[in-house]
């Protein structure tokens, strides 16, 4: 009985996490992001490097007249870089009302994830960062890592960086 609230919370989380996901590959790992957050998928266009931004910011692209930043999700997840390929693409997502591009190896499919499919992220200790995952989905015998897109693309680090660098101009 004592575990009841905890179990309830877990069930609640699973229920919330369930839904349709767009999955994509980073190397051999398959990740999923909620499809409702996805705006579109575009091929890789020329990316303009923006100086003095965090290493995981690849730069900015022209999305039909709008300028949006592109983030290398590999670097964000501390994965090693790979050679670019034809399959690379940019998933344009909207999180917290901010449009951003997410540079991925290749997109896979749209997947329906039921609450029963979801399991909690196991704990790996300090070496493996799991802070950007909401859970793991096991469907059709495959493992998909469900990404917390709001957290993964959070700009709080950017803001912090600006606070350190950019204090000078605000006072003008």
């Amino acid at each position, binding site marked *: 009985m004592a575990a009841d609230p905890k179990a309830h919370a877990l069930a609640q989380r699973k229920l919330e996490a369930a839904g349709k996901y767009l999955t994509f590959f980073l190397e051999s790992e398959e990740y999923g992001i909620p499809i409702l957050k996805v705006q579109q998928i575009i091929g890789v*266009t*020329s990316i*303009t*490097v*923006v*100086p*003095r*931004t965090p290493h995981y*910011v690849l*730069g*900015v*692209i*022209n999305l*039909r*007249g*709008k*300028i*949006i*930043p592109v*983030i290398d999700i590999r670097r964000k997840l501390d994965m090693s870089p790979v050679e670019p390929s034809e399959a690379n693409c940019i998933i344009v997502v909207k999180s917290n*009302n*901010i*449009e*951003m591009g997410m540079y991925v190896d290749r997109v896979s499919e749209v997947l329906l994830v039921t609450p029963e499919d979801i399991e909690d992220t196991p704990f790996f200790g300090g070496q493996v960062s799991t802070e950007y995952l909401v859970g793991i989905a096991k469907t059709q015998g495959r493992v998909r890592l469900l990404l917390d897109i709001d957290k993964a*693309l959070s*700009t709080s680090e*950017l*803001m912090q960086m*600006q606070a350190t*660098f*950019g204090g*000078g*101009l605000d006072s*003008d």
Partner: protein
Amino acid sequence: MRDSKDACAFDDLIERLTEGDMTELEAKGGSTTESMTLDDIAALLVQLEPNDVEDLAAIRGRLDGLADDPSVGNPAIRKLLREAAKKIAVTIDAPIEEAAPALASACRLVTAASSIQRPSDHGPGLPAPNELSDREVAAVAAGPVVVPPPPPPPPEVEGVPPEKKKYSASVVLCPPDVDIAVVGEFVTECLDYIASAEGALLALENDPYDKESIDTVFRAFHTIKGVSAMLEMTAITHLAHQAESLLSPVRDGSAKFVAITANLSLRSVDMIKACMDKVQEILNGGAPACPDGYDDLLHELAHPEAAAKSGGNIQTPGEAPPPPQPSLLATPKPAAAPAPAPVAAAAPVASHAAAPPPPPGPVGGHPVQAAPPPRPVAAAPAAAAPAAAAADEPTETKKRPEQRKGESAVESSIRVRTDRLDRLIDLVGELVIAHSMVAQDDTLLHGANHDLVKKVTHTGKIVRELQDLSMSLRMVPLKSTFQNMQRVVRDVARKCGKLVDFVTDGEDTEIDRNMANLISDPLVHMVRNSVDHGIEVPEVREKNGKSRSGRVRLAAYHASGNVIVELSDDGGGLDRDRIFRRAIDKGLIDGNKVLSDNEVYNIIFEAGFSTKEAVTDVSGRGVGMDVVRRNIEALKGRIEITSQLGVGTTFLIYLPLTLAVTDGMLVRVGNERYIVPTVSINMSLRPEQRQLSTVSGRGEMLILRGSLIPIFRLHRLFEINHAVEDPTQGLVVIVNDGGQHCGLLVDELLGQRQVVAKTLGAGLGRVEGVSGGAILGDGRVGLILDPAGIVNLARHSGLL
């Protein structure tokens, strides 16, 4: 005549007097303070906000004066007035939440006093109370309604009750020199407000305690009052003011929203609508007259109790009946509408018959001749005003008929959300790029398909036209901005006791809508400064052999791809020595330095600088000009001063044509391309070795015409590989960063570009040294550099 400060303040008060019968007031003895009746004071109090300290102080002084004046016979009146003066004194010191009720009670006290006084004005009426106990006075101050029972009106002598004024005779529905475009906007806006007020009123009938609806209605009347007052449409101002006053106690919670309130409010709404129709009619050449029933409605609004008591709902023929109020409609009085203003009928005749043109200035035939009314046009009877305009400005009248021709003088427009507009402009820009990519495709350039080339060229034409049109969507003429300045000049001139002629030129010049809004504040500052600091008082001007009234000119024109706004005055000019001394006193500059005239003049843009000895509420605090420069620079513009002591000062504001398009120089550093805004570039050069020197081996400097300019290497700041390392092989772009110069080392210049500046997206926030991005001709994003940011960055990062 306007030398004492008090007189100025009161002049100001009288002009605010949209309430009360102006003609009557002026007839009593010109524009001096003595002519203010208690009614007028009460009306002023209603309109004043607790923070209008100066005006309140003036009123208080006047009330104290009256209270001590033995010629004011009735001690009860004096007592009430003294109490009111005390309340105002409280208002001045108290925090705002206490001030408002105090002001309201002061207002009630004065109203009460005036209602005691009034019957005696009309000869031997019923005896007014001569003594009032303190308790009674307190009750008046606290009470929601006028307490001393207004004695019944004296018996009517002629058909019209004595206090039933011919409101329509003393107000102007649409001044003749009004700007059609502005009125059009006003009408649209007004109808919006009216619609919401109407809805709210109907909701109030179901739920009389609905605070939100009351506020909506109140706000609608208040806004209409304000805007119409600005346009000098006193008829509407007057009406809206009365309607507002009617609702004021309901809003305070001191009165209930009853049937009569609803009825009158709705009729006011209808009347404003009728006025709007009339205004359009007038603009199309109709006769300037108030709509039927205007006088009756105003009369009822002014005396709602009476209307409620008699159940009298003077229904005007042709007027849309108010929403069902059966009990009120049951006993309609015959319409007692006085014949539309005899003055109005007489005036056009006068203007035709005016063989010897009336002297310029106040309207001929107007009751007030002795002293010029503060607002000649507004105060003049509606129809007499055109006569004045005809006499004063023949050119103006010639222009009018042309404007009035055509289907409808008021242009129809729709409101579009700006984000949609921006998106449209974005997409058109994108279309232009996409099209140029097609047009420059190899298959087209070298292909033999002549037909296809023709089709693409045709599309190109359409695209270009579309682009021009989309750019013009954001453009507005500077007219309304300039018109606001007119008011500023007038107000400041009166406050300072100066005579100023304000002239505008080129007000049809169009600039970006956003920019028109943003330029307004700096301009207000500058215009105030010109009048307050620049123009001398008439006596001084006369002594210096100038005309008594100064001249402030505001002009706008296009020159070399910029819009230039020029503000000039023929005042005292900038006193170089005085500025210099002041700046040394304030520690803004080093006294031993030799400065050019321009450098000295630019000191006035420093924060905290003011040569004015005394701080007034107009200017002199030393804030302002620094804000002005910063605002203008934020618009990617710049400001220049030329001045001659004793002759005048001219400010030139250079603004880009539009905020959306930035003129920039495309530069290359390594494999990256950046855009440097042209406004901040002074020059660029390839330095020779002998021009370069270093400080402690790192800080690089360029010696240019005797001055030392620090050089910052863009590739080091931005960590770009494969860039030119040797300054003698690259180019140094000299940029100015708020007065200081510095050089940026780049590889080469790629040429000038006009780009549409955009943000880098909220996800990235602000990036130091980069002000935004732009889509370049090849569809890629180019970053727009922010020179000031780069310098800041370089200084802080230690990478020199």
